[in-house]
């Protein structure tokens, strides 16, 4: 696997990546096909409702991949990745709000409805520019990226590690949640941003747009996955693993550990932002509850459940948990929490390496372990 190919093309030579991309693209194709060609009453017809639902799962999957990148390979357990997700979401939401234009309830050409009836006379400066798609999409990357840069710089420079890091990431997202709840902030307070009309001129209510969003999310996931794969299978990826398992040693080898951490952390945050941006138009609302620490913990759970330090495990976990949530909340409304909670307990106790652990175990029987995706040995953040 140490082929001298460039870092970007390297992943495509890995079996795991090939399988993953294969399955993902096939799934996208099938869903699209069944949704478009089959008549509604056909048993195999995939309704637009389901397409949107799957789109949501995929955006969650991308988010999970981002978390796995920092947790699995860098050993940084971020309990605040929801914050980056939500920031990306808000950037997108603000763009969609501006797209409403004067079709809002009050018909105000400039101000979103919630500003009108809370008597904002002018658009706050940080809303400027969000009427332009390119700017908004840039912000989808920059807003989480910058936050991660500043926060990460402070944290890694002063070598905040392990549990301490986890807890202050939690503090970060919690603080942001409270902040966004405040109506003075000008982000719609608890109601957040909603009632979107169109995206890049496409009517968000039309089935075609929904399908398009679903495909876009799938593509984003594919790209994000390959990117992460490329990073972890590069030498930089091995430096990350080295940092995770023996930070001091890595320093003595002459690597500026804190910069590697920062780099990967920022990349991961941006991926999370993209996930958020794709999530918002599909669920039709973004509000501060996405910042809630509980949500961030859930993301980690998806990864743990799928199996950390494998990337594809994260995807499996995210989709599985959220699908379970969808089914249970519909089928056993007052008991679904038992099922979900039980699932978390059982998996963590019985499958320490998650579902991917099982798969990897099978593979390992046949050939030596893919050293580019090693299971963490003693997890560094254990030290407290």
């Amino acid at each position: 696997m140490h082929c001298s190919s460039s870092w970007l093309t390297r992943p495509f030579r890995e079996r795991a990546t090939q399988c993953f991309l294969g399955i993902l693209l096939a799934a996208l194709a099938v869903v699209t096909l069944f949704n478009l060609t089959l008549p509604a009453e056909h048993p195999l017809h995939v309704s637009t409702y389901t397409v949107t639902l799957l789109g949501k799962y995929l955006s969650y999957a991308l988010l999970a991949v981002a978390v796995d990148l920092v947790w699995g390979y860098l050993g940084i357990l971020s309990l605040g990745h929801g914050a980056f997700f939500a920031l990306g979401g808000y950037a997108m939401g603000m763009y969609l709000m501006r797209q409403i234009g004067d079709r809002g309830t009050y018909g105000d050409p400039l101000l979103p409805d919630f500003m009108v009836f809370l008597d904002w006379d002018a658009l706050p400066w940080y809303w400027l520019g969000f009427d332009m798609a390119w700017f908004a999409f840039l912000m989808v990357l920059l807003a989480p990226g910058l936050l991660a840069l500043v926060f990460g710089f402070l944290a890694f420079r002063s070598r905040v590690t392990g549990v301490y890091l986890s807890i202050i990431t939690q503090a970060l997202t919690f603080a942001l949640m409270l902040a966004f709840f405040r109506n003075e902030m000008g982000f719609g307070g608890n109601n957040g941003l909603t009632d979107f009309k169109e995206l890049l001129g496409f009517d968000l209510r039309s089935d075609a747009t929904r399908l398009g969003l679903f495909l876009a999310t799938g593509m984003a996931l594919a790209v994000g996955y390959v990117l992460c794969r490329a990073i972890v299978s590069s030498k930089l990826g091995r430096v990350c693993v080295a940092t995770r398992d023996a930070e001091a040693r890595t320093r003595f080898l002459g690597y500026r550990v804190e910069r590697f951490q920062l780099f990967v952390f920022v990349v991961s945050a941006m991926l999370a932002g993209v996930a958020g941006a794709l999530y918002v138009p599909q669920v039709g609302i973004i509000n501060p509850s996405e910042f809630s620490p509980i949500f961030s913990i859930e993301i980690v759970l998806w990864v743990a459940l799928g199996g950390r330090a494998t990337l594809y495990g994260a995807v499996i976990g995210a989709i599985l948990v959220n699908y379970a949530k969808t089914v249970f909340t519909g089928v056993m409304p007052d008991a679904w929490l038992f099922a979900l909670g039980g699932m978390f307990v059982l998996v963590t106790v019985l499958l320490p390496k998650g579902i991917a652990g099982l798969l990897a175990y099978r593979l390992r029987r046949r050939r030596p372990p893919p050293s580019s995706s090693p299971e963490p040995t003693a997890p560094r953040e254990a030290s407290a």
Partner: protein
Amino acid sequence: MKIPPCLRWLLALCLLACLPLAVHAQAQAQAQDDTGQSLLASLDAASYARMDGAIEAIVASGDERSRGWLEALLGGKLQRHKETGRFVVVLENRGRNWPVVDALTGEALGEMSRRELDRIGINNALRGQLQSVLAVLDLRVDDVGARREAARDLLGRVDEAMVVPLQGLLEDEADAEVSRLLAQGLAIHRLEQGDAAAIESLAGSLNPEARAALSSAARSDDPALAEAASSALADIEQKLRLNSGLETLYFGLSLGSVLVLAAIGLAITFGVMGVINMAHGELMMLGAYTTWAMQQLLPGQSGLALVLSIPAGFLVAALAGIAIERGVIQFLKGRPLETLLATFGVSLILQQLVRTGISPLNRTVVSPEWMSGSLMINEGLSLTLNRLYVLGFALLVFAGLMLVMRRTRLGLEVRAVTQNRAMARSMGIRATRVDIMTFALGSGVAGLAGVALSQLTNVGPNLGQNYIIDSFMVVVFGGVGNLWGTLVAGLSLGVINQVLEPWAGAVLAKILVLVFIILFIQKRPRGLFPQKGRAAEG
């Protein structure tokens, strides 16, 4: 709708006069039935505006049952049976059917449904006036405490008709406090009448009523009066400034004590064992529900129930803790983050268990007498009792834990196992047992926190969620594995928060505190009291 003052005083006197007559009650009962019936009928017929007339009539009748009626009226328990039109007093008005007695004869009439009854309504205005009437009455009783209460109630309620008799009372009042209060009450009244002389007797008084009277006087159009009043106000404000400082400190400490209680259990399971127990909040919830259950078991003895639920809460939570340790955590040794995930699952289960098992609604936990109200330092500054108790309780729990950790065998073993598990084992310490005990201890303390919280906030399925994050902050801020750190961290965070709140607002204050913690951790990556030496190296 005001009861005329003269009447009000008359009323008081009559009621007084009635008390000794009670003996003859039954004898006269029959004779009075008709009158009583008509009295109540007129009361029932009257609109709120007219009610005073009816009350006047009742009082004037000098009927010795009037007091009973008026109190029933106060409690909204004086009602009329629709068909028979006879008046009844409802003894217990919760639930579906209510036990009632005849208002006139006092004979028990068994249970009636709310459907058959018609309540005689009353509103705040009347309630206030009736209360002041009863207050005047209570000035005659022997119990000093009651007299002081009564006198305090009268502040700002005195009116012309009461002046003379009150002065009378003032002369033969033995207790200094009561007479001071009465004097103030009278002064306030005089001031309301525009008597500038009254001001200096009020000068320096921190009592809100006095302040209210002064500030309204300060707005009066008589310049001299206004001048004097506002100057008096000025130096009161001066005194108050000190007060409010102390008050804020107290608020801070009491908030801090809650944080400490919530976090201290975590400091053990998390700091000492390295187990990140997301179900900690739910263990607190269990403690709170234990308190509720206790109060259900011992109806009417909320105080006793509360005291008993301290050990009970500890036990319940500790057992739950043991169950969690055995059932989940023991399989996750050395994988602290896995414990986070698993216990998160546990917390979900526990929450839903309570929702389906007990109820998704909050449960009522009654505060016993001795915990409600506040301890008056001076008239401007009084410390709410329930929080005072919680503060004390927190310190007690902390001291207890310190004792356990420093003085007992268990504490020694726990520290040994934390330092070096293998070594401890080889020295014959049964590490597994120590783990169980430690976790049980931490969980039990969470239970205690729950018991305390039941006196401050909702007892509901979400109780735990509201505290878990703050608890983690406190532990980390204080320095993991250091109980002192937790104490200092909790209290200081509480104070910081409360100092910020007045000018930053509740939300911003909380945000600022969080940001402060984040920055602080940058400066001191291992908290307030970091663990020293090689052991601490990552």
